């Protein structure tokens, strides 16, 4: 049971990470900076609960806001570069963040124990949940409440003007501009929003695993973050969720016996998906098929009754 709850947590955290990249992909920006924002979120909220003894919720919020603030700052230089150059620039950002935390040493004695980030040794003992009597199921509940909240928010965003504006910029920047869309504002807002979501994911991750170090925030994680929405498709948020369940639940956990071969499989999966379903798993046809299927079932149900 513990094991499955653990996987559920991982899937929740990765879904948030994937959604943070999803927001940016809507505007056509492929960013590997999400792992940097994730790292900021986890260190900031971890420091707040461990060293300052904050409650988890305000700590998560502040972690997310700080990550969002850095994303806002990254948003401006990111406006100047596109495509591959943006990928390179955002990798550079994530590496800077990783190396900064690699060097952060802030040890404080709290209740007779020395705690806090210990540079190369990482940030251990982020034990808010255990110390406050949370059971693992509660943690799962917290993570998934936040996941659902973010998904509903992004779903709603797509039903209103703001979502259309994000997609318009993603489809054609020039056409969007000549329709009166403020490109700077939209791109920076998307980057900031993505940063906030990644920051929450980071905070949840640090507290649910109780331990983070610089290895956690590798480029591999950034690659995962963008591959979820790319594999899942940008039609809606469900694609990202399905991709995370498939990759984390099936490839990474389900095929654990395959060891490092899973990484080859992951790479292979991306190549196969790009060739056969470049628009992602969940596209317009998929959703309309799903609707048809549901309607058919309803009809049958009607006849039987």
């Amino acid at each position, binding site marked *: 049971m513990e094991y499955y709850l653990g996987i559920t947590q991982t899937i929740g955290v990765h879904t948030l990470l994937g959604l943070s990249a999803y927001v940016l992909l809507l505007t056509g920006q492929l960013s590997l900076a999400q792992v940097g924002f994730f790292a900021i979120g986890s260190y900031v909220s971890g420091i707040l609960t461990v060293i300052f003894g904050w409650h988890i919720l305000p700590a998560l919020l502040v972690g997310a806001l700080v990550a969002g603030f850095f994303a806002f700052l990254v948003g401006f230089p990111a406006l100047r570069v596109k495509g591959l150059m943006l990928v390179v620039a955002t990798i550079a950002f994530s590496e800077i963040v990783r190396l900064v935390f690699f060097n952060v040493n802030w040890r404080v004695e709290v209740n007779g124990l020395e705690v806090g980030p210990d540079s190369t040794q990482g940030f251990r003992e982020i034990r808010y949940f255990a110390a406050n009597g949370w059971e693992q199921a509660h943690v799962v509940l917290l993570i998934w409440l936040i996941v659902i909240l973010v998904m509903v928010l992004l779903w709603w965003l797509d039903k209103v003007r703001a979502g*259309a*504006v994000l*997609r*318009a910029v993603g*489809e*054609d920047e*020039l*056409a*969007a*501009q*000549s*329709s*009166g*869309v*403020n*490109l700077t504002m939209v791109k920076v807002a998307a980057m900031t929003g993505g940063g906030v979501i990644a920051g929450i994911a980071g905070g949840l991750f640090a507290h649910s695993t109780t331990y983070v170090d610089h290895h956690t925030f590798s480029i591999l994680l950034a690659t995962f973050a963008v591959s979820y929405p790319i594999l899942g498709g940008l039609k809606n948020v469900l694609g990202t969720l399905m991709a995370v369940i498939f990759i984390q639940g099936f490839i990474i956990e389900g095929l654990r016996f395959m060891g490092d071969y899973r990484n080859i499989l992951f790479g292979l999966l991306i190549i196969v998906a790009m060739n056969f379903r470049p628009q992602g798993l969940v596209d317009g046809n998929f959703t309309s098929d799903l609707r048809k299927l549901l309607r058919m079932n309803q009809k049958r149900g009607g006849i039987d009754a």
Partner: protein
Amino acid sequence: MLSIENLSTSYGLIRALKGVSLTAEDGKVTCILGPNGAGKTTLLFTAAGILKPSSGSVKFDGAELAGSSAPRILQQGLALVPENRLVFPQMSVRDNLLAGAYIRHRSEATEIAEDLENMFDRFPVLKEREEQTAGTLSGGEQQMLSVARALMSRPKMLLLDEPSLGLAPLIVDEIFSIIRQMNNDGISILLVEQNAVKALEVADHFYLLDQGKVAFSGTPGEMANDDVIKRAYLGEH
């Protein structure tokens, strides 16, 4: 009236516009001719606020627009129809048109709906394709869609960048008759064209842009009689 004075725009070290001055009168069709690389698109982009000029002024109905943002300039009534008919390929025709009304206020919902119907009247082919994604339209239909999308902002003046580019002669005729029709409806037009023969049919005034400068300015009559232009653009020897 749009009056551009001494406008210069650079891409890094390359000066694409070197002090261009021209005016586009209200209710008229003003046409800018010029070879590739003359700075025609740069000029329209600068006027529309997509590029920022390094010096000079762009005045529209008395208001200084040089250096303003693209949304602000659109709000002043100057709408750009970019080259290569840049529609939103994954959005439906209807959504593309609504995107054109992006800057208009929510309280105008009824007017926007009326304008949408007007566009469908003016471009019946768009009505047939209302729910189709714009990427599936033919080149000519996409051009009509991008013109219609710009009209949805209710502009006073349209900046049309090579609307005939890559279209079959019959479609080009159709596009030009639409240009004339829009002009008759009171919309001023600043048209960038390579097809000088067609432009002669609609334009009231011509400018020739060459290497970032205005090389010629005159009426259609004067243009048709200019030897250089005749040779370069009208194909007469």
